[in-house]
């Protein structure tokens, strides 16, 4: 404005400068926080896993360990608990092989467009169950899906299901056959197991309570 403003509140120059300062400050704060967050969410190492040092996102070799999700009194919500070693598809995976498997699994999860039906870490489509803690889902642990697929372990049952999902319907809304190969299915299961070990600040809350509640039928039908 060429004329002098009556008050600073009607001065374009004042608001322009304020906008620039506020935007700049917010941006600098965001960048600073991003550096801190990146440090906290980079993947841990295999050595740390063996020593029991916790990382928000563990190394790919977490697939060699038992993963659970338990209430933490101090934090007031559930957190992933990495337990004893357990075999994954009948063997222990080296750091290199586990990383390669996770890489393949993550790529496959994108190539098959999982996210447009399912949610991952709660983000995605809302047409199918959330996969954040799918590895820990009662459905795979209570004998339902191992029984239906005729497999001995849950990882094998998951892989079999992923390869031929519409052969094992559990609901009118089925997962379509996406041409997932054996290798891709194994890699996807590793990706899901790894995701279940991510510290999500307690999301989802009271996960899979339904397993206990639904014994003997549900109130919803």
């Amino acid at each position, binding site marked *: 404005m060429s004329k002098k403003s009556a008050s600073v509140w009607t001065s374009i120059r004042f608001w322009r400068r304020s906008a620039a300062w506020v935007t700049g400050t917010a941006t600098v704060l965001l960048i600073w*926080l991003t550096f801190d967050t990146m440090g906290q969410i980079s993947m841990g190492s295999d050595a740390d896993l063996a020593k029991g040092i916790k990382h928000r996102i563990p190394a790919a070799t977490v697939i060699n360990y038992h993963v659970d999700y338990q209430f933490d009194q101090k934090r007031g919500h559930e957190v992933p608990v990495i337990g004893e070693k357990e075999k994954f598809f009948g063997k222990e995976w080296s750091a290199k092989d586990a990383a390669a498997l996770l890489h393949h699994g993550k790529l496959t999860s994108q190539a098959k467009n999982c996210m447009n039906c399912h949610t991952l*870490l709660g983000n995605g489509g809302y047409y199918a169950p959330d996969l954040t803690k799918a590895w820990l889902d009662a459905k795979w642990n209570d004998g339902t899906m191992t029984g239906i697929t005729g497999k001995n372990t849950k990882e094998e049952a998951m892989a079999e299901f992923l390869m031929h999902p519409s052969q094992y319907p559990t609901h009118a809304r089925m997962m379509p056959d996406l041409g997932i190969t054996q290798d891709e299915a194994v890699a996807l299961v590793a990706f899901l197991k790894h995701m279940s070990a991510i510290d999500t600040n307690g999301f*989802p*809350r009271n996960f899979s309570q339904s397993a206990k509640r639904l014994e003997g039928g549900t109130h919803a039908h």
Partner: protein
Amino acid sequence: MLINGELKYESQKLGMNYFRVALVLFGAQLLMGLIAAIQFLYPGFLFEIFDFSVSRMVHINALVVWMLYAMIGSVYYMIPDETGEETVGIGLGKLAFWILTAAVAVVVLVYIFIQVGPGNESTIWFINEGREYLEAPRWADIGIVAVVLVFYYNVFATYMKGRRTGIMTVMVANLFALAGLYLTGMFFTDNISVDQYWWWWVIHLWVEATWEVFVGTLAAYALVKIIGAKREIVEMWLWIEVLMLFGSGILGLGHHYFWIGTPEYWWEIGALFSSLEPVPLVAMFVHVLYDWGKEQGHCESKGSAHALNNSPAMAWVTANAFGNFLGAGIWGFFHTLPQVNIYTHGTQFTAAHGHLAFFGAYATILIAMMYIGVQGSYGIKKMTMTFKTKMALTLIIFGVLGMGVALTIAGYEQVLVERADLGGGWDAYFIAQDLPWYIQAQGWRLAMGVVTFVGFIYLAWDLLTIGAVESAQEESEGAAAAAAA
């Protein structure tokens, strides 16, 4: 929208081309949405032929792309008005338009006919990247960056050459951020938390920061253009909006970092700043209505009846002012606090907010820009609403509101039963999906989707015909007046 003979600048004609493609993609978006809505009710519909993952992917991609087209079109349209200059690299701009349109067509055909690929890099490069909203394969990402560079050069160079208004200053600065942010969503990582961290930089810093500022800029331009609002007042408001939108929106990003593996401090940061996000939306609402009332008052005191020279556009700008506040502001605030979001995250609540916000904040103002474009194309002095304009407004607004309410109810069922009661998981999910009230809500969503689609047909029909009808009317009135004199 069929011809643009009255436009003096090539830049504005190019803008109209962008609007035409945007309208086609808008229609495609709604059709895909209808298919996806049917699949919720009848899961066998097109099963293993055209699955939900595909219909939804095309639904949300068509949405993003039609909006980007309409946004680019709006900028090319306003450049000559604001700067007083023809766009500098208009030849290059036209070439970029055809390249982009050909690329979009190829991407969509691949989505529809190839759908998914093997789990390796080739799929990410050539079929789809499998990241919600940013599914475009990498070759297309690179192409988009090239086209956007041409576009940005055109905007920046013309701005530097011509008159530098406050509106264009905000536009140039904001577009720089908007275009640059796309780069943060273009890489692959095995770490899904890092993946989603940067994914949100694109999604959130687009729709809750730079796109909102873009809307503020368009609203400012539209108010000057439609009601002759005083530029100094409009531009002052615009800077206040930039301050509030970026002040709340940039750190409001934190509300996406509650549950993806990121540290707890995002709870407080996200809660605080995203709770402030509705404030500028209230301001924008007040601003539009206040300026309109003020100019109308001036007109009435001078004895002329109507301050508007384009009532269809103004109706959509008003719908924007209200819809932005309601859809983005209120529906966003509903579930932005972590205490609530732990139950609502990943439910139909998000879908309800998404529908209301994308429509209220963006679709509305972009439709207004299309009407401004039609007015210019046919050289209409005072454009008024036709029956079709009113049908489009009524049916689309009623339809989208209806979908929003239905999805909110569906989300409410999910939150209470699937999440709070049963704690999520496979069984809990399907139990909630089978609740009679959930299914009823999905039924209403489909019905309201059909209403929206019928409204769209009126809208397209109106945009295609209103120019010819009203310019002929003005001509005959002019001739009659001349004959009488």
